[in-house]
């Protein structure tokens, strides 16, 4: 399988990428690690006229502690994030989840920003940034804007980013010393999760329980009101609308959500 024809351009600075998007944004796609975009293009589900490759932009690869926030460059690769000492200490959920995405080869290429703008409800990172109360920083022709993760996933594969905007950074409150947990259930280890749960600081993000990554609000409210982990986890599938497929029915995914939420909350209470 080969992608439909396109014109390839390599950006050597963020400004160069933004200038290209300003003139070609409607017909262009941004290529980061390519591990969400290229498979879609090979299946001809995406047929952009232009690709602007931001892969070489090392200026977007970093993890920094800034006051009580952790700032992550959007082009940071999973393989770097899983080992990053700052991330492991101050945002252990994201560090751990970065090591759970795909397989080693995928983690050598895939980027956190690429996964987030792809906005696949079956991916691990979107639920993890929701649970982390992250803010996504985008740059565009009008400058920079900050979009809370809770407002970023509008629909399947849909975000509020304009064609001329580029996701540059993910910021989250430091979770130093806080409990966290992550659980997912897959057929093969490299598959997307049938269902997954990310827990940080009392927030619960759900993988693949609907068209967008979700928060388990009923569980969170029950926890805040003092419910036990078992009772709160029993509410994890409230308000979800999971995909109903032969290999994993909606009812089975709801069951998984309740079980995995209990396990993730138990892990969080121990960590």
């Amino acid at each position, binding site marked *: 399988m080969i992608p439909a024809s396109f014109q*390839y351009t390599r950006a050597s600075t963020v400004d160069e990428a933004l200038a290209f998007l300003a003139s070609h944004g409607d017909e262009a796609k941004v290529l980061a690690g390519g591990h969400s975009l290229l498979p879609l293009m090979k299946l001809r589900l995406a047929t952009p006229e232009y690709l602007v490759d931001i892969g070489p932009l090392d200026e977007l690869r970093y993890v920094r502690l800034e006051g009580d926030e952790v700032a992550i460059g959007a082009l940071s690769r999973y393989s770097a994030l899983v080992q990053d000492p700052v991330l492991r200490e101050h945002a252990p959920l994201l560090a751990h989840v970065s090591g759970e995405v795909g397989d*080693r080869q995928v983690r050598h290429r895939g980027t956190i920003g690429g996964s987030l703008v792809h906005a696949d409800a079956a991916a691990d990172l979107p639920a993890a940034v929701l649970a982390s109360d992250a803010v996504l920083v985008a740059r565009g022709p009008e400058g920079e804007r900050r979009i809370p993760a809770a407002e970023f996933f509008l629909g399947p594969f849909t975000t509020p980013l304009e064609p001329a905007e580029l996701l540059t950074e993910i910021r989250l409150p430091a979770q130093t010393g806080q409990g966290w947990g992550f659980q997912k259930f897959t057929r093969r280890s490299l598959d997307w999760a049938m269902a997954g749960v990310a827990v940080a600081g009392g927030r619960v993000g759900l993988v693949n329980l609907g068209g967008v990554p979700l928060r388990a609000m009923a569980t969170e409210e029950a926890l805040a009101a003092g419910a036990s982990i078992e009772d709160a986890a029993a509410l994890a599938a409230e308000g979800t609308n999971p995909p109903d497929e032969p290999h994993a029915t909606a009812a089975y995914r709801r069951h998984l959500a309740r079980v995995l939420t209990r396990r993730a909350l138990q892990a969080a209470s121990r960590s």
Partner: protein
Amino acid sequence: MKVSIEVNGRPVTEEVPDRTLLVHFLRDTAGLTGTNIGCDTTSCGACTVLLDGESVKSCTVLAAQADGHAVTTVEGLAGADGSLHPVQRAFREQHGLQCGFCTPGMIMASVSLLADNPKPTRDEVRAGLEGNLCRCTGYHNIVSAVIDASGQEVDR
């Protein structure tokens, strides 16, 4: 576009369509057919090569993305005198293959794994090779081969 990749230490430069995948550049342009195309969907790992020393699935990388970088394929592992790389030797001695289709990818993924974790446990090998599928062996002897290549005693 004009793509220039150092393949197994040898520069390969060619004008190719922008949409050329790295695996096709390696097989068709560089003439190195050791890298197999299996699933073509980033799942099976048969097309695994090293890009700047890190394992990648070359069906999901554009040749253009590897422009100016170094790629190692299974053909680049053996010594100039034909002596096998330790991972190749171990796959042969431990019978880590049957039909051989997944083997180039398995070997390249194993080389990358051992570079990061020189003395893995059997469980770490299984986790480290999660991106490579084999339909023949049941993986047992592949794990033994990686343990052997790491210089550890193979405990069956």
